[in-house]
């Protein structure tokens, strides 16, 4: 107990130190302790005014001598308030960890909170586990820049829960214990099945975790100016602290707190947006269509496709599909990965082992669906609200991907009441983003650790012969190692393109995990060979297809594109009257294109150009996963697996014999 407290204190101290260090780097004059409050003014000069002025973007592209990147317009946060709010969140969650650590005595406590989470609590925790910073900031950004397509993109993330509700939640509660391996190994040879299930869980969690960690590092750097590496270490230390000491109880409560904060933030901000629109939804949409800035933005977007639109027609186009999602097959492929992958995500499946009954599992999914769906509907208001009040031009001036739209909107909506409220509101939403990152990464670390400690160590290496003390120790040690690996991957992947990793995680879950879960629960003839071939083929197919897809970097393709830019720019230069040079922006583009045009070589798997043209592999890899699972089972029939189907089927439908699953 004492050692635990020392560790908790140490991780708290470390994270405070991380924040303090970051401040010192930014404002060396301030001492360590006052750095918490003093340096707001020192940090400010680099940031230009946050209120967007559309035409300012081009003129500030001069490289500053001290910094490697050009000084861009950025979002100015009040660091004192923001870091103060981060500290409050760290303090509250650390309190939760200390409380949770006292309750975590057995393996069931560590992995499944002893089955003592209620349906309502679990519903909030599922929502907290699921909605990442990408949903919070990314989707509203997409809506603010591309209108309808951003909204359409968000739909699949909710519909995915129908599969969770109808097919997996209750059977998994009734048939499983802590992990995916528990469900799959019921009537198969436990050792190989658990080993493969654990590998697939670790693969999915690693992809997702890497994307989250890199996103976290970049976001923290952008929001409060903490350097990337320090952000990763700070987030990593907190995440390891939550999981190692508090296990599932702490992770659950961190997720519940985060979901509550996220919903309050989204609700409050949408409320302010609706006040401005006079609570008239039709008027709100009319404002979008008639906004000259949005009209101008859309005209430029469609001009790239050779379409000329202007005025109200261009405004109306903002509410129609096709500005962002241009490849329908890719869309359908992503939709399949979402609808089937969510139900195969190990960290989501794991949440159903924390509730006592199938009824509670059912209730938790329904509550989660209302929270998640409600959130995405509010996101529409935020995205369109940002487009109206900040203009797409203002949003892209801060971040070309639109990820800052919600935060900018919060600052402006608050500042319209009083400047300090703008700062407070922005700081609050930054804190929500911070809590969001912590909640999602903790859930992933817990899922990966459970697979390694419970499936591989306890059941494969120790044949299930490990007492409670040893199991809990193994779980904690594994979480520590998994968390440390997560930090290292995050540090190593700073310069990597990780955007496709979230889609890849869903594709692997949909093609590898979900087919074997469904077939295990519902098909009599399913067996060991089916599980292994399904997991292997589904996982390898998704990863393989992504490796040869346009997600990878193809130097020759980049060079070909750059050559075109060089030709166009040189033409432009030649057309200029004598003595004049290209504008600074064009000159920079030309210099960059000239460098890029020299690129040669192949992608990491040795290709000149992508073989598979879609970014999302689901449409091919999901059917492959199902086919491999079915063919594998048919090729190597197993009588024992067939005979045990009655038991699995009765158990998953009725919950009979479940007490064993909880107590064991």
């Amino acid at each position, binding site marked *: 107990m004492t050692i635990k407290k020392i560790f908790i204190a140490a991780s708290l101290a470390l994270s405070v130190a991380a924040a303090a260090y970051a401040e010192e780097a930014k404002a060396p004059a301030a001492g360590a302790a006052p750095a918490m409050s003093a340096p707001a003014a020192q940090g400010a000069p680099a940031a230009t005014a946050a209120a967007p002025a559309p035409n300012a973007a081009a003129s500030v592209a001069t490289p500053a001598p001290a910094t490697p990147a050009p000084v861009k317009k950025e979002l100015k946060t009040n660091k004192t308030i923001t870091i103060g709010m981060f500290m409050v969140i760290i303090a509250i969650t650390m309190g939760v960890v200390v409380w949770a650590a006292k309750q975590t005595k057995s393996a069931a406590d560590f992995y499944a909170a002893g089955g003592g989470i209620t349906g309502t609590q679990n519903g909030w925790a599922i929502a907290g586990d699921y909605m990442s910073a990408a949903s919070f900031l990314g989707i509203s950004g997409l809506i603010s820049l591309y209108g309808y397509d951003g909204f359409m993109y968000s*739909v699949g993330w909710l519909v995915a829960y129908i599969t969770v509700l109808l097919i997996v939640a209750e059977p998994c509660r009734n048939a499983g214990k802590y992990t995916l391996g528990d469900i799959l190994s019921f009537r198969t040879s436990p050792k190989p099945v658990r080993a493969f299930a654990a590998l697939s869980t670790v693969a999915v969690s690693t992809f997702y975790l890497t994307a989250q960690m890199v996103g976290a590092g970049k976001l923290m750097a952008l929001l409060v100016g903490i350097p990337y590496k320090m952000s990763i270490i700070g987030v990593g230390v907190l995440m390891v602290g939550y999981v190692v000491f508090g296990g599932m109880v702490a992770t659950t409560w961190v997720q519940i707190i985060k979901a509550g904060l996220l919903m309050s933030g989204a609700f409050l901000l949408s409320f302010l947006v609706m006040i401005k629109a006079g609570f008239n939804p039709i008027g709100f949409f009319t404002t979008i269509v008639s906004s000259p800035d949005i009209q101008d933005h859309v005209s430029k977007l469609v001009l790239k496709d050779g379409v000329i639109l202007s005025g109200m027609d261009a405004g109306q186009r903002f509410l129609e599909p096709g500005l962002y999602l241009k490849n329908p097959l890719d869309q359908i492929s992503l939709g399949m990965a979402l609808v089937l992958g969510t139900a195969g995500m190990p960290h989501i499946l794991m949440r159903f082992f924390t509730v006592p009954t199938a009824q509670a599992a059912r209730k938790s999914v329904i509550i989660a669906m209302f929270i998640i769906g409600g959130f995405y509907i509010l996101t529409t208001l935020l995205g369109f609200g940002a487009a109206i009040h900040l203009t797409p031009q203002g949003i892209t001036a801060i971040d070309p991907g639109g990820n800052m739209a919600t935060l900018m909107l919060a600052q402006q909506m608050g500042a319209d009441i009083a400047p300090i409220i703008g700062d407070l509101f922005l700081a609050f939403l930054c804190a929500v983003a911070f809590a969001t990152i912590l909640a999602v990464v903790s859930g992933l670390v817990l899922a990966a650790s459970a697979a390694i400690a419970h499936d591989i160590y306890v059941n494969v290496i120790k044949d299930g012969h490990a007492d409670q003390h040893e199991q809990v120790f193994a779980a904690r040690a594994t979480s520590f190692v998994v968390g440390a690996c997560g930090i290292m991957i995050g540090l190593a992947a700073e310069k990597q393109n990780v955007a496709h990793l979230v889609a890849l995680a869903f594709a692997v879950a949909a093609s590898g995990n979900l087919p074997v879960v469904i077939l295990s629960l519902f098909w009599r003839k399913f067996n060991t060979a089916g599980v292994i071939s399904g997991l292997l083929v589904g996982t390898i197919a998704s990863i393989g297809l992504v490796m040869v897809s346009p997600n990878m970097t193809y130097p020759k393709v980049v060079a070909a594109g750059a050559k075109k830019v060089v030709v166009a720019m040189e033409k432009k230069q030649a057309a200029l009257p004598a003595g004049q040079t290209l504008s600074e922006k064009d000159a920079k583009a030309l210099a960059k294109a000239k460098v890029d045009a020299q690129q040669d070589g192949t992608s990491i798997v040795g290709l000149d150009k992508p073989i598979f043209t879609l970014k999302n592999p689901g449409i091919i890899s999901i059917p492959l996963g199902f086919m491999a699972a079915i063919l594998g089972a048919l090729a190597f029939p197993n009588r024992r697996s067939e005979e045990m189907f009655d038991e699995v*089927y009765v158990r998953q439908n009725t919950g009979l014999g479940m007490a064993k699953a909880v107590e064991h």
Partner: protein
Amino acid sequence: MAEKQYDWKAIAKNPKFVELHHKKTAFLFGWWIFSCVYYFLLPIGAAYTPGIFKVKIIGVVNFGYIFALSQFFVSWGIALYYSHVANKDFDRLTRELIDELHL
């Protein structure tokens, strides 16, 4: 607690269980397929029949927007309907089965 030994095969043949199993399977897979079809109409429709999506319904609000918004309400509707049927029918059948088996 020493675990009770159940005769799984016998339970699986129990008429109550067979009834539960049939009702549940039809309901779950039926509504699951419905929700998938309804969802995929959105990306497919947006890509191949953009004309319909552009039809204005109320003011500037078009069919595409209403259809996307309806996805949320349809999902919630299915969830609530399932919860209603499960709480009323499936749970009752399960309880009756367990009572009948004197477990």
